[in-house]
């Protein structure tokens, strides 16, 4: 049993490595992951809505969200379109291993994107990250959860534009409802309830906690647990959708 799981994990890493080589680490992907969040930030800042203490966490989370979901959407659908997905399907792997491999590639991509944004942005804005380790853990859980979210869209879609449309449908409401650029507390109570169903809320909250607090807080633990739960549910959902779509 343990051997089977280890074997599955190793093969998932091979898929992730292949995806990174084939699809991910190309300049346009990094640009897209950074471009939209920065544009949104500028739009908000021009309207005078930005609290400088909030932007570091919000912008980092957005960069991971846009970077990972964009790339995941393309990676699975493109493989289905070109027929290479069949190569994975006929190999001795479970569908979950394939999904996990795809998510792992997005995970690493998200980590790199976040590193490009969070620490330089903190330095430039004069923000001190009180607990960098907690920040890195929050980024890691965020990357995994958003990668899984991207795979849901891409598992469902039949072609790339459809996957991108679905990704936008999932991520744009989150941008405005998760307290990315403004504190969640200023939202009407109904929207605060809605925000609790969105993974971006927990990502932003966990990152803010790691920036503001030197020690682990109760909120931080709940946020990480929520991101982990989102990851598991979204990976399982992706596997189920793919199974239905291909069989």
């Amino acid at each position, binding site marked *: 049993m343990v051997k089977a799981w280890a074997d599955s994990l190793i093969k998932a890493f091979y898929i992730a490595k292949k995806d990174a080589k084939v699809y991910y680490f190309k300049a346009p992907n990094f640009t897209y992951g950074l471009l939209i969040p920065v544009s949104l930030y500028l739009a908000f800042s021009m309207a005078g809505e930005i609290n400088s203490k909030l932007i570091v966490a919000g912008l980092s989370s957005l960069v991971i969200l846009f970077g990972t979901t964009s790339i995941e959407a393309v990676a699975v659908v493109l493989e289905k379109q070109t027929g290479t997905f069949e190569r994975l399907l*006929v190999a*001795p792997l479970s569908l979950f291993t394939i999904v996990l491999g795809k998510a792992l590639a997005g995970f690493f991509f998200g980590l790199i994107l976040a590193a490009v944004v969070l620490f330089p942005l903190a330095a430039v804005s004069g923000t001190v990250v009180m607990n960098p380790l907690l920040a890195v853990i929050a980024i890691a859980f965020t990357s995994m959860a958003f990668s899984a979210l991207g795979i849901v869209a891409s598992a469902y879609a039949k072609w790339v534009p459809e996957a991108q449309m679905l990704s936008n449908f999932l991520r744009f409401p989150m941008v405005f409802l998760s307290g990315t650029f403004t504190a969640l507390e200023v939202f009407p109570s109904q929207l605060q309830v809605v925000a609790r169903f969105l993974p971006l809320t927990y990502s932003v909250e966990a990152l803010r906690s790691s920036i503001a607090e030197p020690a682990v807080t109760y909120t931080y633990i709940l946020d990480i647990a929520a991101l982990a739960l989102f990851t598991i549910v979204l990976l399982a959902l992706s596997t189920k959708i793919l199974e239905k779509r291909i069989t």
Partner: protein
Amino acid sequence: MLSRIWSVNCVRNEHEMEIAIAVYDLTKQYGKILAVDNISFTVNQGEVFGFLGPNGAGKTTTIRMLTGQTKPTSGTVTVAGYDVVRESIKAKERVGVVPEVSNIYDEMSAWDNLVFAAQLYGVAKNEREKRAKELLELFGLYERRTGRAGNFSKGMKRRLTIAAALIHKPGILFLDEPTSGLDVQSSRMIRNLTKDLNKNGTTIFLTTHYIEEADQLCQRVAIINKGKIVAVDNPEKLKASVEKHQIVEVSFDQTQNLEHELASLKYVSKVVQVGDKFRLHVRSTSEAVPLLVDFARENGLKIVSIDTLNPSLEDAFVEMTGLSPEVMATEKEQGKKAVSLG
């Protein structure tokens, strides 16, 4: 070289050695469409088994079920002794699949494609590079191993796809239209390779548009039509089953409007025009030939050539699938188009 690099990775135990693939009451339904209707057959260990059928007959759906890509609605499939649904990973470990369309990663090199395939199949690290080198040499791609696979010709991509399917020394190889769209040289190479692999003990499950190819390569053939298996036998027996109709092939110095008149001749059951020739299905050639001579004389025609033919596997295929000559011609044309695209 092939025998040196080959040691078949297939059988589960001695008892199951004789049957490589067993299909029982297999059915696949998509909504209201019954794609595969309760089919059963077995493929023996070490044989080349042809799976023929017109477009839309259920070939692809069957292969997808046999290779674990699609779950059957009902029925069972065992491959190398393992149930494809319940023990799918073990079954897949013993199988190589070459799909109809080459599916290598264009962005990766030939070398990286093979190494990645080896990783997916759990080939030991110290074996991967050795296997990749052997296969690239065997398929004449070693010199291009670092080149981006996307820049390869169609024939080279096909060879690389087959090499990737062989990386883990599968005991059973599924070849879906392996020579479709390829030039003559690549097609011949793949046919020879199929024979060599089989000689070395690999069981081959082959689907092809080229019925002549199946006739050359397969020890047994199954014909599927409208989701049902209509025949499973060796090619010679299938040909013999249509021998009740003998065939006379005749050409005249003109071809216009003769089909209908020839069909009305005594003893002629069917007429098919093939290029400038007419193939007449007759009860007896000895009765038909004098009639044809009379027919030519009465109509002021000259017989350019006249020949008697043995039924081909294609004749058996047409008879068993009930395809009209026009539909059969379209099927063949699609195969030829694929060739010209290459």
